[in-house]
């Protein structure tokens, strides 16, 4: 199965979500924790979701991924502030979970789609 760029994005999101979880849970040294957290929060939620739209333009995808990430992070943070249930740990956990879920869905679609294509190709050959 050939790895397309959508799936690559999903894998990056998934690994970033894992790294952000580790950064949150383990006592990583200060220089690495902010880098991983900023990277994850500012890019990965969007990178996991935006490929669902199947835009062909990479620039549009990247900008929308960034915008979607900012919007999702702000919405989660705002909800916690307004509802007075502030918890950065649970907020980050929620965003990590949503991103991982979307990334898994992308990968599942890729695997299912590839497998289905292979079956159809085999049937066609027979």
């Amino acid at each position, binding site marked *: 199965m050939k790895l397309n760029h959508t799936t690559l994005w999903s894998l990056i999101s998934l690994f970033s979500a894992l790294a952000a979880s580790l950064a949150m849970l383990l006592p990583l040294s200060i220089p690495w924790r902010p880098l991983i*957290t900023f990277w994850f929060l500012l890019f990965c939620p969007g990178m996991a979701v935006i490929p669902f739209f199947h835009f062909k333009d990479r620039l*549009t995808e990247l900008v929308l991924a960034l915008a979607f990430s*900012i919007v999702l992070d*702000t919405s989660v943070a705002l909800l916690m*502030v307004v509802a007075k249930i502030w918890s950065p740990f649970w907020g980050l956990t929620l965003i990590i979970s949503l991103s991982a879920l979307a990334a898994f869905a992308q990968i599942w679609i890729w695997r299912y789609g590839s497998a289905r294509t292979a079956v159809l190709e085999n049937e066609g050959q027979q």
Partner: protein
Amino acid sequence: MRIREMTAFRPAMRLGSNTLWQTLLQPLFLVSCAVALWAISLPGVDPRNMSDLGLVSVLPPTFFAALAILTISFGLTVFQEAVSTPILLLHMVLYIFMIHGTPQIVYGTLRYSWAWKHVGIIDYIQRHGSVDPTIGILNAYHNWPGFFALGALLTDASGFSSALSFAGWGPVFFNLIDLGALLVIFKALTDDRRLIWLSVWFFFLASWIGQDYFSPQAMTYFLYLVVLGIVLTWLRMRQVPSRQSIKNWLRFDRISDSMHTLMQRANPEGVVASSATPAQRMGLILVLIMVFFVIASSHQLTPLMLFSALSALVIFQVTRERSLPILVAVITSAWIIFMTVGFLDANLAWVVQSIGSFGANFNATLINLSTASAGQRFIAWMDRGLSAAIWVLAGLGLLRRVRSGSWDLPAMLLAVSPIPMLVLNSYGGEMLFRVYYFGLPFVAFFAASLLYPTLNAGHSWHTPALTAILSFFLLSGFLFAYYGKDRMYYFSPQEVAAANYLTQNAPKGSLIVDGSWDWPLQYKNYEFYNYLSIASLSKSDRLKVMNDPVGVLSQWMDDVPSQDQVVSSGQKVYIPAEPTGSGDGDDYPAAYLIITKSQEAHIEMTGLMPAGSFVKIEKALEQSGRYKVVFSNQDATILKLIDPQEGPSS
């Protein structure tokens, strides 16, 4: 118009075919030179020596040489059709780092006092886990807390104790992400990549307003650009609507006919642009609803600008999503009605009063040149000149585009759509700046069109030469306009140390008097204190302080004033719900006066008070025997009222 450009005949390049040298090695060599010159120019810069011309006055010639080389390189590179996108991107990214990273590298402290206040709101959320919409000071931020909630999440999740750790890089970050959004917009407006990149370049050369710092407006501006990029790229009308369908929409015959004629001229081929599939459209509208919610919860002005822009696009049939301005209006109204009651209670009167005051709202933005210092008068003329110049270039560019058959209706609409906001409000004396800023991407597009009006144009050697000349012209204005107030925006480490002293030593409920609000204030535990800025007082009260500093200030610093006194004297004092005085219940537990170098610079540059006023006040208080110096270094002094209950009354 896109179809016209796509199918246009492209004449052969008169300069011959592009070589590896022209498209890769030359730009890389020039960019490397620019980076090297920039790197060697920074270590020797001492911001303490800035004059009223700002950062420009202390930057060495190598810095300007680096910018000049980058500008020439960009002019030569954008001209080459075969140049790869990463090379052009490299120029833009380097420009952003050079312009917006330099202050952070040279100063080492957070630039601009409002950015410190924004850090203070994030600090409040980190400590309280919520906001207080009824709080007496910096009230608007608690009613539109979206950006600050995000900032608090980023700070806490990253393990930082304060947003100060990263806020200084806000301008670099926001300009970089704006770059992406601008490219999406310009790609929707034209297929000529020279025009796309030159528009971006001109945007950054004319974006002197300084709303790109660590602030809600910087975040919502990016989202505003993204919304426009989505609408112009994916939610465009598939084809020019018929005369009858326009009539059904606008009702009036004459207006409908005029509109149809205009739209036909704007889109002679009838087919407008690519559009989204139904599934993409549905998903994009869901994303847009989330974006509208975040914009509405983060900033007061951006939703209005967005409403105006989307309304213009809907009325002129550029987009087929007629619900978009309605969605913005509903989400914004809902936020205002249900979430900003605390703000409206205190501010509704002046908001309503300023509606319709076009002249007053316009003039409120411009500084009073009769009182400003000579340097600031020069800066004011430079920023006004730069703004006028980019609009003049845009007018000429528009003429060239129209003559070549490209009407660019969406860009025209979006360039002028912010202007009606001038009627609504002065926005704290900043509305004209904001109108300029929100229309700037499209003004920059037309200005760039002057050089590249069509795919067939701009192939002679004149074009890169003219690009460089115009860029130098705009850049020289930009450097003065953008850095021109940095003598007051720069806070030395010594000033920050003084601010730290207060946050660590002043008891809760203390009064902090400052010469002006221009110092690193309110960034930590800000709600613990009461504030009074001498420069923010009415003119008569400022005179009183100047004539009798000991008597007047001692009276104010001695007792907590009643609400009536606060209003009548125009003091910017926050009265806590329960004063925590140590004496008879009416006293502040402690009262401090802080005077810093940047406060002195503020009154000198704006002419609010005579130069040296704060030094005189400080000396008078010291000599009175009623104050003691509790902190002092070369850039800041903090005086404390010794015994407030025995202070003389004037």
